[in-house]
Every structure is written in structure tokens, then in C-alpha cells.
């Protein structure tokens, strides 16, 4: 099956490279090196890891020639973990959408999406669907802001990794120069999430049992995995630089904290990436 997947990926790469680029459409290839401080989402035994990710994406962006227009984003990405090989994964996403220019400053995009994910630890492989609505404002050539809502329903091979989530976020960015920009963002999310623990938690000790909690032992994490409802807060910052019209680099950092009945955990993640669009 690996061979078939490799062939499919290569075929798509050749296909993308051979397809002529026209105004309003964009291909994007990129790779990033990332770090996470709590890759196993542990309440009491956080493990850090380094992650290499590569992706190919297609984006039909807005021409602006009509007030209402359609969009399409599709992407294929793969991630390899330096230590936690069981988390290696391939993800494919397709997201058609519709955009409306509410005014020269305000625009709205609503986009349902379908995402398939295959993880080395097959219990975590999942198919997800949802919808994302983004309201954006370009106040002038330098300053822009955005707000979004995203609903996700992810169905994994094992229920403990399945989740639904409602997330809202805000962000703001400044184009300091035509080549250099920075962004800050905040996201609040409410929904299911799994956590891991080394503690000898039993069914009797799980709070609110009977309200949809599920748990199982995971060989991949070598720990008990428990699904519960959590609130998550994320704070992110990006800085990007365009070397040319096609080659760009970006640095990003996100701090995430989430809490539920079982406790709370946090995670620091950072990445540096290089991309090529045409």
C-alpha cells in the first residue's frame, strides 16, 4: 500500500507541475521543521518531539471581478516525528467554498471541508468533516484582521480519538513592507479531546462517567488514553518574509492550554518553514 500511495503522490506532483498557472490560482509546496513540548498530550508525563512536515496545496483564490465567487483549497501533507514514529501521518484535505465581498474592506468565506488522515498508529486514523466561516477585513494595504468559526466532526478508528469541536478565533496582521509581515492570533475551542496519563486511573475514578467519557490503553503512547470534554485556548504569532514572488519563509509559535475534568495540560510549539508558490 505504501507503494501505491507513493505512486499517487508522485503522480499528483507531476500533474501539478505540468498544469499551467493562471491568475487567481496558486500552487503551494512547502516544508517545515517544528517542535512540540507535549506531543503525547499528557497530563503528567509530557514528551517533546521534533516534526518534519511537507505539503502540496492548490488554492483557487478570489479574482474580485464579481461580488460573489467560489473558492477551492486542496492539500496533501505528510508529517514525520523524530522520536514518536507512531504519530507519523499523511493528511489530505479538500475544501470548496463561497466568498462574498460585503464591502471593499469586508469579505466572508464559508467553506465546508473533508479531511482524511492516516496515522501510523492506525487507531488514530480518521475522517473528518466540518465547516469554516471566515470574516476578514483589509483596512488598508498594511493592516488586516479576521475572525472565524470552525466546526469539526472527526471520526477515528478508535472512538477515544474521535471528537467534535467548535472553535472561534481572531487574528490581526500587518504588512510592514511588501515582503515582510507579522500576525498574532487567538483561538478558543470547546469539544472533545483525548489526554494521556501514566497515573493508574480507573473507570471509577473518571469524573462524570456515563457522560460520554471513553478510555483505553494505547500501546503507541504506552499510557491510558481518555477522551473528555475540554476548553482550549491558543495564542499564536507568525512572522513571514517573501524572498521573491514565489519563495517565502515563515516562523511561527503557538502556546496552547486546555483544561477538562481530569486536569489541564499545555503545549509550546514552534516551527520554521520554507514555501514555494506559483
Amino acid at each position, binding site marked *: *500500500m505504501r507503494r*501505491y500511495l507513493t505512486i499517487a503522490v508522485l503522480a499528483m506532483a507531476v500533474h501539478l507541475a505540468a498544469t499551467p498557472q493562471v491568475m487567481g490560482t496558486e500552487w503551494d509546496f512547502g516544508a517545515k521543521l517544528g517542535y512540540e513540548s507535549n506531543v503525547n498530550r499528557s497530563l503528567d508525563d509530557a514528551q517533546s518531539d521534533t516534526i518534519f512536515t511537507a505539503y502540496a496545496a492548490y488554492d483557487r483564490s478570489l479574482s474580485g471581478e464579481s461580488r460573489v465567487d467560489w473558492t477551492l483549497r486542496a492539500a496533501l501533507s505528510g508529517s514525520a516525528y523524530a522520536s514518536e514514529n507512531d504519530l507519523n501521518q499523511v493528511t489530505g*484535505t479538500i475544501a470548496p467554498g463561497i466568498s462574498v465581498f460585503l464591502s471593499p474592506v469586508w469579505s466572508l*468565506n464559508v467553506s465546508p471541508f473533508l479531511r*482524511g488522515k492516516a*496515522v501510523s498508529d492506525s487507531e488514530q486514523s480518521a475522517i473528518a468533516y466540518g465547516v469554516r466561516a471566515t470574516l476578514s477585513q483589509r483596512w488598508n494595504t498594511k493592516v488586516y484582521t479576521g475572525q472565524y468559526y470552525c466546526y469539526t466532526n472527526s471520526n477515528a478508528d478508535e472512538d477515544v480519538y474521535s471528537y467534535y469541536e467548535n472553535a472561534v478565533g481572531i487574528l490581526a496582521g500587518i504588512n510592514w513592507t511588501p515582503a515582510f509581515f507579522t500576525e498574532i492570533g487567538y483561538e478558543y475551542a470547546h469539544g472533545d479531546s483525548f489526554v494521556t496519563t501514566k497515573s493508574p486511573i480507573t473507570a471509577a475514578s473518571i469524573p462524570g462517567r456515563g457522560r460520554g467519557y471513553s478510555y483505553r490503553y494505547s500501546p503507541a503512547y504506552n499510557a491510558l488514553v481518555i477522551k473528555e470534554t475540554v476548553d482550549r485556548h491558543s495564542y499564536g504569532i507568525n512572522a513571514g518574509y517573501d524572498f521573491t514572488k514565489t519563495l517565502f519563509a515563515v516562523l511561527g509559535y503557538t502556546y496552547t492550554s486546555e483544561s477538562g475534568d481530569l486536569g489541564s495540560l499545555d503545549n509550546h510549539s514552534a*516551527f520554521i518553514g520554507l514555501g514555494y508558490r506559483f
Partner: protein
Amino acid sequence: MAHPQTGNRGAIAWGRVAQAILPLLALLFFLAPAAIAADERDVVLPESGIHYPGGFDVNTVGVIRGKASDVTIPESGPVCFRVSAGRDVFTVLASPSWYWKDMKGNMVDGMDVHVSGSKTLGKDGNLYLIAQEVRVLQSNKVLVFRGEDGSPSWRGGGLPGQGRGGFGSPMRGDGAGHGMGAGGRGRR
């Protein structure tokens, strides 16, 4: 964290890959070219032969001053109006109609204006100016249609960072820009 993965389990995992990814790949494979084929959005205006909206040339940018008249709002293509500047009459190409209306562009009709933009000679022998900025002299009101590099202002939808690795980009998210937590991968 390492664990002995059996051959059967690995097969199940990659079977999941096939189920999840290959249909999406196939969809992208066939959908994207069709979308592109129907997506030639830089058109050649029939009378002038000017490429729109991509015909802006920063090397020919200049300013004209005169009285604006004859505003024409087509169903598709750029709104245009005439500016009599001394002995020359320019046809000014502005923006799509929705943008023109939102900018209250009709205010220019009959007014003295300064218009900056890219000058060009159409194949019909008339002078054209692809507008960057229109200043109505009586009210000092400025209508901006393009940036310094000639990029159309009506393309301002969406988040600029998402095409450059920022929030909303595949670089930041799960492949389609979703999620901000855990480096943009949300709950995994």
C-alpha cells in the same frame, strides 16, 4: 512510546490511508485542471485589446487632469469613464462594478479629477488609462483602485497571510489551514 506494530496492524493503517487519502487525491487530480480551464480570469478587452485586469504597467504610470464624463458600468469587465485632458481624451478603466458602486464612484461624473494610472494606446487608436487613484478636486475625495505596484484593490478578500505561510495557510494548519492549537494541528 515505541511499540511492536504487527504486520496486520500496519496493513490496517495503510488501508486507512487508501480509504482516506486516495479518493481525495483523485478528486483533486480531476477537479483542479477543470477548475483552471474554466478560470482564465485575465481577459482581453475587445475594443482596446488591453489585458484586464493584468494590463497595468508600472513603467507607463502618469497623471492626467480633466473633467470626467460618460461613466459606463458594464455587466462584466471594468467600469470606464472619459476624461478630457487638454487636447487628449482618455478612457479611464477603473474596477468591477460592485467595487465601483461600493466606492460611490459615480460621484466623479461631471467633476474635475486627477487620475493616476498606467497609460496605454488601445488597438482602436484611443488613449486609455488603467486607474490607480482618482482624486475628485472639488471634494478632495480619493478613490483608490490599485496599489503602488498596480495590484487591484478589489482583490482584497481573504487573509493576506494565508498565501504566505501565515494563519489559514497549509504551512500553519492541517493542510488546509484549519486550526491554530498545537502548531496549527488542533486536536489531531
